[in-house]
């Protein structure tokens, strides 16, 4: 029996059964996709495989022989390589230096063998067509290339089995395509690949087998040819899931948000937003599509008062709000779901309650003068947790203990649970599982139907297309195309790359 096998893996944490009799195998030259919602136990399983946890029971077999790993070192020696979702690279080192880190080739007297290090990178890069310069400094490389450096690192240690943890979640659509080619190259070279994801389309595209985990168990093993996305989603979530966003045609009302000739500088003083003009009306969802880094972040920050603009105006309900502070804009019935949930949307060491009142703590009834009324705060938190289906043992637990989807629900609840006229949401479902995405999307449409003007910014074209009544495409700080619902992905995709298309707004 060749290949890697995990049989009957059980892992019990205090109070939680994270893995329950899980089986997973991968042979040489095979790609296995491991699908599951956040918290289904995928990460725990991979940590067991990588020697970070030891299983409560169960076996790890390589070529039929049982192995016990006490740390990542053992796993690496046994031919297992892991590419983490968050890269473990030293930003100021070169590619070659990063690759040899921890297994440095040396000449006599312990001198580093730089030539050999560079040669290793060049060889692997050429063999798998990775196109990575061994002398480049890692922090100057785009995310997609940094990921390849991680892959080279693993290959340099002669890994036979590669575990890729959510590899595409950080990549742009173009990067995803070349990444898929790389994975196919690995397969052709006889490597066994475990591809962890919650993106159904990718799993269907590249996997030979798909293993689905739910609540710590392997619930199904299927061939891509036998299933479609709907079926996969159902297996993951445990109930039929509607991947379509259902909405009636928009009935746009008055202009709520009006952006005119807006120019915004980024932190390097480049014109990130370069003369943008558009409007969002009550009762419509306008989506901004574009490859990340084309000014969307700065646009949103400027509208919400977080970043000053150089020129142009932002108007909300007819009033000029260009120079107002975030709090003043917030008080004009603007809700903002920020791009980076954990970094800017939440205070992780705070409780759910504290996060729910994070931008209303200074108003009655949560505060009376400067004194907080924690009773009122808890009342509001309790109500929102229920209404917005936040799965938490209690509003008093730290928000950091919640899953990503529930964290996002906390933010959405906080932002929209008041009289909202404009909702600005950046990457509203990034990194969330199918069930949470479905929920958040439904909420956004519900807000629209109540007459809220909605501006969605997302680097996931599918999401923008599913939600929006109107789509704007941003490229290099400008709006290069405007599309209605009937536009195809190809048309919009071309515009995202700066090719002509659509009618410039």
């Amino acid at each position, binding site marked *: 029996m060749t290949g890697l096998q995990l049989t009957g893996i059980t892992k019990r944490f205090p109070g939680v059964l994270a893995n329950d009799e899980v089986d997973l195998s991968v042979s040489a030259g095979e790609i296995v996709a491991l699908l599951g919602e956040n918290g289904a136990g995928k990460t725990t399983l991979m940590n067991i495989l990588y020697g970070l946890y030891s299983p409560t029971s169960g076996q790890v077999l390589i070529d039929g022989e049982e192995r016990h790993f006490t740390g990542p070192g053992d796993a690496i020696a046994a031919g297992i390589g892991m590419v983490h979702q968050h890269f473990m690279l030293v930003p100021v080192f070169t590619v070659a230096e990063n690759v040899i880190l921890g297994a440095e080739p040396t000449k006599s007297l312990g001198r580093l063998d730089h030539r050999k290090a560079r040669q290793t990178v060049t060889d692997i890069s050429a063999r798998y067509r990775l196109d990575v310069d061994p002398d480049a400094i890692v922090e100057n490389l785009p995310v997609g290339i940094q990921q390849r450096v991680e892959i080279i690192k693993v290959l340099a240690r002669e890994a036979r089995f590669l575990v890729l943890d959510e590899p595409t979640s950080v990549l742009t659509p173009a990067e995803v395509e070349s990444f898929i080619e790389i994975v196919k190259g690995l397969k052709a070279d006889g490597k066994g690949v475990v591809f962890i994801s919650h993106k159904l389309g990718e799993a269907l595209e590249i996997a030979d087998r798909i293993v689905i985990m739910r609540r710590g168990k392997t619930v199904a093993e299927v061939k891509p040819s036998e299933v479609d996305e709907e079926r996969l989603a159902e297996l993951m979530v445990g109930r039929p899931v509607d991947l379509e966003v259902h909405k009636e045609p928009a009935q746009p009302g008055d202009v709520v948000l009006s952006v005119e000739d807006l120019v915004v500088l980024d932190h390097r003083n480049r014109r990130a937003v370069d003369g943008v003009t558009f409007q969002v009306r009550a009762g419509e969802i306008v989506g901004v599509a574009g490859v990340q880094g084309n000014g969307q972040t700065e646009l949103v920050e400027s509208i919400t008062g977080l970043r000053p603009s150089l020129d142009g105006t932002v108007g909300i309900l007819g009033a000029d709000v260009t120079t107002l502070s975030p709090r003043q804009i917030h008080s004009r019935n603007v809700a903002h779901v920020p791009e980076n949930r954990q970094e*800017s949307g939440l205070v992780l060491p*705070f409780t759910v309650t504290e996060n729910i009142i994070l931008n209303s703590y200074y108003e009655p009834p949560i505060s009376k003068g400067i004194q907080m009324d924690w009773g009122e705060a808890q009342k509001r938190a309790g109500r929102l947790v229920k209404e917005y289906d936040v799965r938490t043992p209690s509003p008093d637990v730290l928000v950091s203990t919640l899953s990503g989807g529930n964290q996002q629900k906390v933010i959405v609840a906080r932002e929209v649970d008041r009289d909202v006229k404009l909702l600005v949401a950046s990457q509203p479902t990034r990194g969330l599982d199918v069930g949470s995405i479905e929920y958040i999307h439904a909420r956004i449409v519900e807000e629209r139907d109540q007459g809220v003007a909605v501006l969605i910014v997302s680097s996931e074209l599918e999401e923008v297309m599913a939600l929006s009544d109107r789509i704007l495409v941003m490229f290099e700080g400008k709006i290069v195309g405007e599309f209605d619902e009937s536009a195809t992905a190809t048309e919009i995709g071309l515009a995202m790359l700066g090719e002509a298309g659509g009618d410039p707004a």
Partner: protein
Amino acid sequence: MSVDDLPPQPQPEPTLYDRITGVGTSVRRALLIPALAVLSALIIGAFIIAVTDIDTLKIWGSDPGEAFRRTMTGIGRAYKALFVGSLGSTKAITETLFSATPSILAGLAVAIGFQAGLFNIGVNGQMLIGGMAGLWVGFSISVPAFIHIPLAIVAAMVAGAIWAGIAGLLKARTGAHEVITTMMLNFVAIFLVDYLLKTSIFQQPGRNDPISKPAEVTAQFPTLLEGYRLHIGFLIALVAVALVWWLMYRTTIGFEFRAVGFNPTGARYAGMSVSWLYVSVLAVSGALAGIAGVNQVLGLEPYRGLSNFAGSVGFDAIALALLGRSQPLGVLFAGLLFGALRAGGREMQGAAGIPIDLVLVLQALIIVMIAAPALVRAIYRIRTSDQEPTTVISTGWGG
């Protein structure tokens, strides 16, 4: 899906800053590690007493039994003196509380900064400036005590707040790191005080050395018990502990302080003015330091300003805030412990002939243990949750 199905979420690895300052730790953990740290420090202190007893060391070769007996007696005598001197009599207890007073106030000043993510190293300077303002009120006007003392304290708070606020403004306006600015302002304060003490405004007429006029009797902090040094400053410190707790956990300002301390970006996105908060955190911290400073001139003989009257209180306060895990109650207990060590140390020096410097060694050891909780856990075999990897990936002060 019921609550039981909630997956275990990986807790974010605490940063070095969080681990050291104790911001965000639970009560049990907040007590366990400091208690063990103190215990370990006392044990190591015993070894130090043993190996510094030269006469006994000499006879280990010839008569180990006798040497052992003498060593144990020596350690016993020293720690007994430490105990008697800090808790053994009314005088000892009042001395402990007396010594704890400025430490508690200064410790609160540092702790409030830690909670808001700022490292105020300039408590000493803020004490000096605040103390000078209080002192000036103390000798320059004549009013009844019930007006004079509060007035002097308010003056000290305002002066301390302004002095610390300078560092806050520099951070808010220019991004200058508060560690650098508060530390440098310490030097400015030390020499400014020396200068002021030689000007005619402050200097005692007829003196050439830097010494101020004495404060009016009405400005001197009254003692609590006849014949002992303990004075109302201790009660003020207790009130300050309660007020700081109320401020941090019961007011909108405290909510903002804690939010900005944990996540400045999140605070900004929630509409808080982060730069304004930095200024106000340091101002509040400086105001507390100001009370500690005025305590050092109006709370003890000779009720005058002397060169560097703040001593090392402001620096010890950093250690104290760490030991107290930046919590108001923790600071109170840590302050009492440090006060007890100080008071007991004096007795130890007198009765057992152990230099009071041992107390400083003990304090330092306690801090080392606090800063390296993994060490304490290893010594006492406290298990961390399951087999979480204990490698520390994130370190540093978090920008």
